[in-house]
């Protein structure tokens, strides 16, 4: 019987990431008493519920159950709202390019990310960290995913060319003045 407990910290899209709960041995007919859990269960379930369900858009296919066409339409709107806010009002078709360059400290190759589908620093940072494979390269032996996420800082270059810390400004300000992003390790 395939009953191995796989830690499932691989990249999204791969089999293990998309079904973290199954890897916790739920194939057995066990009566999981939610209050008393073994260390493994407790630890892993927390990690997955924190990372994959809350912060990770691509972790779970088809959840929450919002129809694809509805999601697409809402995405277009959020984007238009943001660019429209920059232009002073809502109206007209905004340009389609909401992609910004993302670099990571120590990594040569830059990536690109669609900023319009994000509305919070948390989802943005987690997406970027996953893009750069951070979850599989830096195993979380100590502390939670949340704590490990905090060991990285998201910085951005604004229209004037200055490098700033993303979370120091409100989201809207950040999006409006954003030119490109860089993920760095927190010092201290």
């Amino acid at each position, binding site marked *: 019987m395939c009953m191995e407990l796989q830690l499932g910290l691989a990249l999204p899209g791969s089999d293990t990431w*998309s079904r973290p709960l199954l890897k916790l041995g*739920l194939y057995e007919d066990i009566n999981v008493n939610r209050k008393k859990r073994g260390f493994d269960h407790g630890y892993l379930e927390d990690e997955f519920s924190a990372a994959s369900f809350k912060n990770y858009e691509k972790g779970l296919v088809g959840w*929450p159950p919002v129809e694809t066409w509805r999601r697409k339409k809402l995405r277009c709107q959020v984007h238009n709202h943001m660019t429209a806010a920059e232009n002073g009002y809502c109206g007209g078709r905004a340009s389609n390019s909401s992609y910004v360059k993302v670099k990571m400290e120590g990594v040569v190759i830059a990536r690109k990310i669609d900023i319009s589908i994000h509305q919070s620093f948390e989802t943005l940072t987690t997406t970027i960290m996953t893009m750069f494979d951070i979850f599989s390269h830096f195993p979380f032996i100590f502390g939670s995913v949340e704590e490990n996420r905090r060991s990285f800082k998201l910085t951005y270059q604004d229209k004037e060319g200055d490098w700033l810390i993303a979370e120091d400004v409100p989201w809207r300000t950040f999006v409006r003045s954003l030119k490109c992003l860089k993920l760095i390790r927190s010092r201290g």
Partner: protein
Amino acid sequence: MQKKMAYSFPDEVLEQVFSFIQSDKDRNAVSLVCKSWDEIERWCRRKVFIGNCYAVSPRMVIRRFPEVRSIKLKGKPHFADFNLVPDGWGGYVLPWIAEMAGAYPWLEEIRLKRMVVTDESLELIAKSFKNFKVLVLFSCEGFSTDGLAAIAASCKNLRELDLRESEVDDLSGHWLAHFPETCTSLVSLNISCLRSDEVSFSALERLVGRCPNLRSLRLNRAVTLDKIANILRRAPQLVDFGTGYYAAELQPDVFSNLAGAFSSCKELKSLSGFWDVVPAYLPALYSICPRLTSLNLSYATIQSPDLIKLVSHCPRLQRLLVLDYVEDSGLEELASSCKDLQELRVFPSDPFGAEPNVSLTEQGLVAVSLGCPKLRSVLYFCRRMSNAALVTIAQNRPNLTRFRLCIIEPKTPDYLTLEPLDVGFGAIVEHCKDLRRLSLSGLLTDHVFEYIGTYGKKLEMLSVAFAGDSDLGLHHVLSGCESLRKLEIRDCPFGDKALLANAAKLETMRSLWMSSCAVSFGACKLLGQKMPKLNVEVIDETEPPDSRPESCPVDKLYIYRSVAGPRFDMPPFVWTMDEAVRILH
């Protein structure tokens, strides 16, 4: 002998009587009475509904019902809406059109849901059916505006063209110009799904202007606010209208023109669209609000105060679709203003966000359940729930027939007690004796399924995700829910035992979907072997199921009853478990 004759009617009389019987269920019952009734009935059946296009073959339908005028077909399973069914799975309509082209030259209506429709199919429809009147493509895909042009050009008596929620390859907006000038028969036109920026507006205007019976018109986003007034003035008889873009710089003349145009539509009862809304333009609707019975604001990213203002002008509202920007305060206002409300759907504005971005909780739903005595149908996305709230809702609204609750984070417990939500959903099924559709979410154990099996006697469709502890959960549902037709399950620890023990039940249902559960490949093969009237399909995009041990769980499983036997249009990642234990591919 003579006594018997006195009791039988001539066929023509029976046919006349049967023509008053419209519902499929009743028609089916009629055909079971005796052979002669069956024979008469099948020759005069004009409408056929096929809930699963693979349950029967086109030839079988044609053989039994030779004089059909109207057909409705459904293809992919419901979870296809959420990307759980891979592209290419199936649901092709072309084989049906091809057969019907020869057999039903007088076919008037085709309604499809979740099917793959190609331009070739559309061209064949345009060519084959001289009296074609109604084409509804609900959540379909695979065709382009070229196919639509063929329909527009050839169908001289077209009454309805409804493309709701379909994926259309937008090659050009000029397809609309293919409607000949002689076409004046349109009653319903829904092009809201079209992306094209260049919907030929002049063609649209002319078309609308020459169709005096046009009752329902749903535009797409390309139609800007200033153009809406022009359209409305050409169709003041509209009952249902879907706006395009509802945003522009606030200009007094545009506003007053729009307000005037709306007020000239004395029959208007239903509104939708509202992409990119500028709240300042909403008061243009106030003159028609008192008549509105249906309002779809589910794309309108407007905030609670503006929503409250609008909704408070609509006392006759029966149906409201809205984003969670409405918040608890908006729903409380709804509960006090709209006493006729029957259906409420609240969609999430930020489904993937980590934190709640709006103040919408279980309180909003409780308020509506208390204030709206006619509430029957609910779809509600939120981030927290309690058993107490669910029990209150159940007690307030025993007349609920559809209850779909989605707590966004899987396995969320009662936020007050941290317990599972078994008792809350149990109250729903217990009190709402006419409940036909239920979607579960939150932290749930096998107990909730025990309640559902015990009380959910009228339940026809059940959707389950991230719930249950063991096979017992599935067993309760399959053994207890007498009216169950569709069951869809994802990410639950349900395995072989319950499925095999209730195999016979599956023949009484339309379909069962299970993904990311614990059903083994061996069990699938066994089911396929033992149950010849079921098609057991295993879907796996990563590798063939027989490349692993038989005890390994399958990724996705779709089981449906069929008299047509296994299908042969499957893609490489779908395997049918045949009765001869051949794995067909």
